[in-house]
């Protein structure tokens, strides 16, 4: 593998809706599939694919740094109640060597496939592919 240095950070805020008894597994599948698609598209190195997911039952996070070690998710609280309905997902795909628009297309294709298989739907809340961003945002939450 030759040295690489270009990364175009891609982020997507989306909502998944449908019956889902295992949100952690769904999100782990999504991250793995996005990583595989990026690799198949010629992305030489996964930097970090990660997300924060919120459900009515609580929140969890999921992370993937390589297909070898796979996606690792924190668990929803055990006594969190029924696991179905809506998952709000903040997703970051940090992959070297692919343009942001390419990552956007691969991520959307992955979401389409995931939802088709699960009988679910997904909608975008916001995407970093929709505009270029040159200034910063510093915010506080105490």
């Amino acid at each position, binding site marked *: 593998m030759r040295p690489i240095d270009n990364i175009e950070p891609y*982020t997507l805020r989306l909502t998944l809706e449908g019956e889902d008894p295992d949100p952690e597994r769904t999100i782990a599948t999504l991250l793995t599939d996005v990583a595989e698609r990026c690799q198949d598209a010629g992305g030489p190195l996964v930097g970090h694919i990660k997300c924060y997911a919120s459900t009515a039952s609580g929140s969890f996070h999921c992370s993937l740094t390589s297909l070898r070690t796979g996606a690792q998710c924190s668990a929803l609280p055990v006594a969190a109640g029924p696991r179905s309905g809506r998952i709000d997902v903040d997703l970051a795909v940090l992959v070297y060597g692919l343009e942001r628009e390419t990552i956007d297309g691969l991520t959307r294709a992955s979401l389409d496939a995931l939802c088709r298989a699960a009988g679910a739907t997904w909608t975008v809340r916001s995407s970093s592919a929709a505009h270029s961003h040159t200034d*910063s945002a510093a915010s506080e939450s105490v």
Partner: protein
Amino acid sequence: MRLLTFCGFLGSGKTTLIVALAKRLAIAGHKTCFIVNEVGEVGIDQAVMRDDDLDVWEITAGCICCQLGLDLVATLQEISERYRPEMVIVEASGVATPSGILDALTHYRGRPFVDQRLLTVVDPTRLQLLWEVMTPLVEAQIKQSDEIVLSKLAVASAEDVAHAEAILQEIDSGATTWRIDVSDEGRLRPLLAHLTDGIR
């Protein structure tokens, strides 16, 4: 006010380590604020930290070692003046170089730092690959750090750790190396004691 800056490549375990340390700092009664920098527009790590009720400021959509250096300085000054914590922990983005952060901090005019340290978190399961393809960044992150934290020991193989230690030896930063897994209290405790030594 002590300033601890955690560097390390994307996915090296910075957030996981910081959250583990933060819980113990809170139990010990240390007033600590956290600044998280992410290159993406949407912050994921800050959301994870807020789940543990940490006081988190986020700087997103760029890197504090270059274009967002002054955002870091402004955030630090605000924290130092408004909240007067004993410690501020900065999580740099995974693509940050320590020297860029140190350059930015020369513009800081808030309460003086009693101590300022730079720690680089290294994932032994990936260091060999990263050393081959991201050499300048990985070398800078390791060489310019005061301390190195070899993370994820519970999932790394003995071979991974041996390769990682050989690379650290090759880079020869002279930094102290801590071998950590966040699930191993016995390994976390000495690092925590070291990082909090002398504050108060």
